C-alpha cells in the first residue's frame, strides 16, 4: 500500500501544485515553494489570476473553439469509424481483408511525418461554401475550422478497437434481425451499436484527448485569433512579463474540463480497453 501511495503522490503532486498556485499571487507562489504550503491553498487565496487570464487572452473564445472542434471530431469519428468497422467485421464484403490491412498499415505512420506534407496538401484542397444562395468555391483550407477537424475524423486505431469489439458480439443477432427484414444499416444502428457502449467510450476518449490537446497542427495551419484552440493560447503568456500565477490559472482552466470528463467516463474506458480493445 505504501508503494501505491508513493506512486500516487508522484503522479499527483505537479497537478496539485498547478491548481493551488493558480489561486495565489506570484510572490506567494515563490514564497511557499520551500514548504508544504506549495501544495495547500493557504494564505492569500483568490480567483484574481483567472480574471487576469480572461483579460490577457480571449480565453472564452479559445475554449469555445476547442469544445466545438473536439466535439465535432469525436461525434463524426465515432460514426465514421464504427460504420467502417461494422462492415469490415460483420459483412461479407469482397476485398475487405485488403482494406482492413491497408487501414492497419496507417498505424505505423507517425503523424509528425505527415504534418508538413499535409500542410502543403490542405493548402491545395478546394472547399465549397454555401454563401446565401450561391455556392462559393475557394482554394486552400488553411485558417479554417474544417482543417482542424476533417483530417482527424477517420482513425485506424478507432476502427481497430471497434472491429475487435464487434467480433465479440454474437453474429446470430444479425441473422435474427435479417430474418425480421432489417437492413444492414438498421442492424448497425439498432443491434450492434447499442451493445458497443464501452468501445464507444474508449474511442470517444482517445479521439477527444488529441483533439483537445492538439498543438503542433493548429500552430501550423491556424493564424486567425478567432479560430485558435486552447493550447495555442499558452503563447500569449510569454510575450510580455510572465506572471506564473496566470500561467497556472490558464493551464488549470484548460486541464480541468478534460479531467472531469475523464473521471465521468473512467470506468467504461478502463474496462473496455481491458476487456476487448488492446490485446496486441
Amino acid at each position, binding site marked *: 500500500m505504501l*508503494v501505491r501511495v508513493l*506512486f*500516487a503522490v508522484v*503522479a*499527483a503532486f*505537479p*497537478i496539485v*501544485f498547478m491548481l493551488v498556485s493558480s489561486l495565489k499571487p506570484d510572490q506567494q507562489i*515563490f514564497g511557499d515553494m*520551500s514548504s508544504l504550503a*506549495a501544495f495547500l491553498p493557504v494564505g492569500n487565496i483568490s480567483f484574481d489570476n483567472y480574471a487576469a487570464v480572461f483579460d490577457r487572452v480571449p480565453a472564452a473564445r479559445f475554449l469555445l473553439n476547442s469544445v466545438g472542434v473536439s466535439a465535432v471530431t469525436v461525434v463524426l469519428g465515432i460514426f*465514421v469509424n464504427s*460504420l467502417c468497422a*461494422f*462492415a469490415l467485421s460483420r*459483412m*461479407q*464484403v469482397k476485398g475487405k481483408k485488403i*482494406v482492413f490491412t491497408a*487501414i492497419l498499415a496507417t498505424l*505505423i505512420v*507517425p503523424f*509528425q*511525418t*505527415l*504534418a*508538413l*506534407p499535409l*500542410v502543403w*496538401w490542405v493548402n491545395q484542397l478546394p472547399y465549397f461554401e454555401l454563401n446565401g444562395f450561391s455556392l462559393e468555391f475557394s482554394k486552400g483550407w488553411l485558417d479554417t475550422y474544417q482543417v482542424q477537424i*476533417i483530417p482527424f*475524423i*477517420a482513425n485506424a486505431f478507432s476502427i481497430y478497437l471497434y472491429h475487435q469489439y464487434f467480433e465479440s458480439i*454474437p*453474429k*446470430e443477432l444479425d*441473422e435474427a434481425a435479417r430474418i425480421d427484414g432489417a*437492413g444492414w*444499416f438498421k442492424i*448497425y444502428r439498432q443491434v450492434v451499436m447499442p451493445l458497443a457502449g464501452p468501445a464507444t467510450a474508449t474511442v470517444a476518449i482517445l479521439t477527444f*484527448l488529441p483533439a483537445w*490537446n492538439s*498543438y*503542433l497542427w493548429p500552430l501550423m495551419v491556424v493564424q486567425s485569433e478567432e479560430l485558435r484552440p486552447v*493550447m495555442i493560447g*499558452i503563447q500569449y503568456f510569454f510575450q510580455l512579463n510572465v506572471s*506564473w500565477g496566470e500561467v*497556472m490559472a490558464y493551464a488549470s482552466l*484548460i*486541464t480541468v474540463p*478534460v479531467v472531469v470528463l475523464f473521471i465521468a467516463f473512467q*470506468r467504461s474506458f*478502463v474496462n473496455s*480497453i*481491458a*476487456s476487448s*480493445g*488492446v*490485446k*496486441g
Partner: protein
Amino acid sequence: MATVPLPTRPRVPDAPNPALPPSNAKTNARRRPGFRRDQLSGWGMIAPAAVLLLAFVFIPAILGFGLAFTNARLISPRPVEFVGMDNFARLFMDPTFYRALLNVAYFTVVIVPVQSGLALVMALLINKKFRGVNFFRTVYFLPVVTSMVVVSLLWLFMYRKDGLINEILSTVSFGLINGPDWLGDPNTAMPAIIILSIWQAAGFHMIIWLAGLQGISGELYEAAQLDGTSRWQQFRYVTWPGLFHTRSLVLVTITIQALGLFDQISVMTQGGPMDSTTTIVYEAVRSGYRQQETSYASAISLVFFVLVLIVSAVQRYLTREKD
C-alpha cells in the same frame, strides 16, 4: 519446486464462436439473393473512413515522399521543380541533424525500458481488487489526460533554478543538494525532459499492461498456488509469459512515441541549450514551418519515417514468437 511444469506461454483458449458461418459461406453468399446490394451497402459503409484515410494519410505520405525530391515551399511564386537528392545531400551534411539523431537515440534508449517497467509496476499495483482501486487508477492516469503542452509548461516552471524541484531536493537533503538550472544546462536538459516525459506517459502504458494482465486466466494462478510457488515465481512463470503479446505492443508504442519527440521540446527548450535537446521532428518542423521549406522538411520527415520503419522491423524480429 522451482521447476513447476507450467506452460511457457499460456494461451487463453478462444471461446468457440458458434455464430461463425461455415467455411463455405463465401461461395454460398455469392448465390444468395441480394448479394450485390450487400456489397454496395458494405462498401458504402467502408467508404467514408476509407476516403478520409486516403486523403489525409496515404496521399500526404506519398506527397511527402515526392516533395522531398523537389524545391517546394509552402508559399512560393516559383513553380515546383525536381531537384533530385539535393535536400538529402544538404541534410546529411548538417551537423545539427546528427545531433538530433543522437538526442533521439538517447531519449529512446532511456525511455523504453524505464517507462515500460514503471508502467508495469503500476499495473501490477492496481490489478488486484482492493478498496480504493478506482481512486488509484484515476490518479495514476491523471498525467495522461493532462496535455503534454500543459505538462511541459508546468515542468518548465518547476525546473527553474529557484523552482519546485530544486526546493524539494534542497529540503529533503537538508540543504545539501543545490540543484542545477535543469533546462539551461546542456548536461541536464535532456534528463529533465526524460523525467517529465515518463511522468506524463507511463499511465497510458499502465492501461495497456493492465489489459494484458486481465487477459491471463485466473486458473493459471490457482494452479501455481497449488504448486506452492512464490510470488516471484508466479510473476516469472505465469505473468511474464502471459504478457507476451502485450509486451510487444507496449514496446512498439513507446518506441514510436519516443522517436517522435516534439511537444516538450517546442514548449520547453526549442532544441537548446546548444542543440542538446533538438530532435528530428523538431528540426523538420523548424525548417518546414518557421522557414517554410516544405521540401527540406519533407526530406527530414522521410528519413524519420524510414528510421521508424527500421526500428519497428528490428523490434518485430527480436520479439517474434520463437517456437
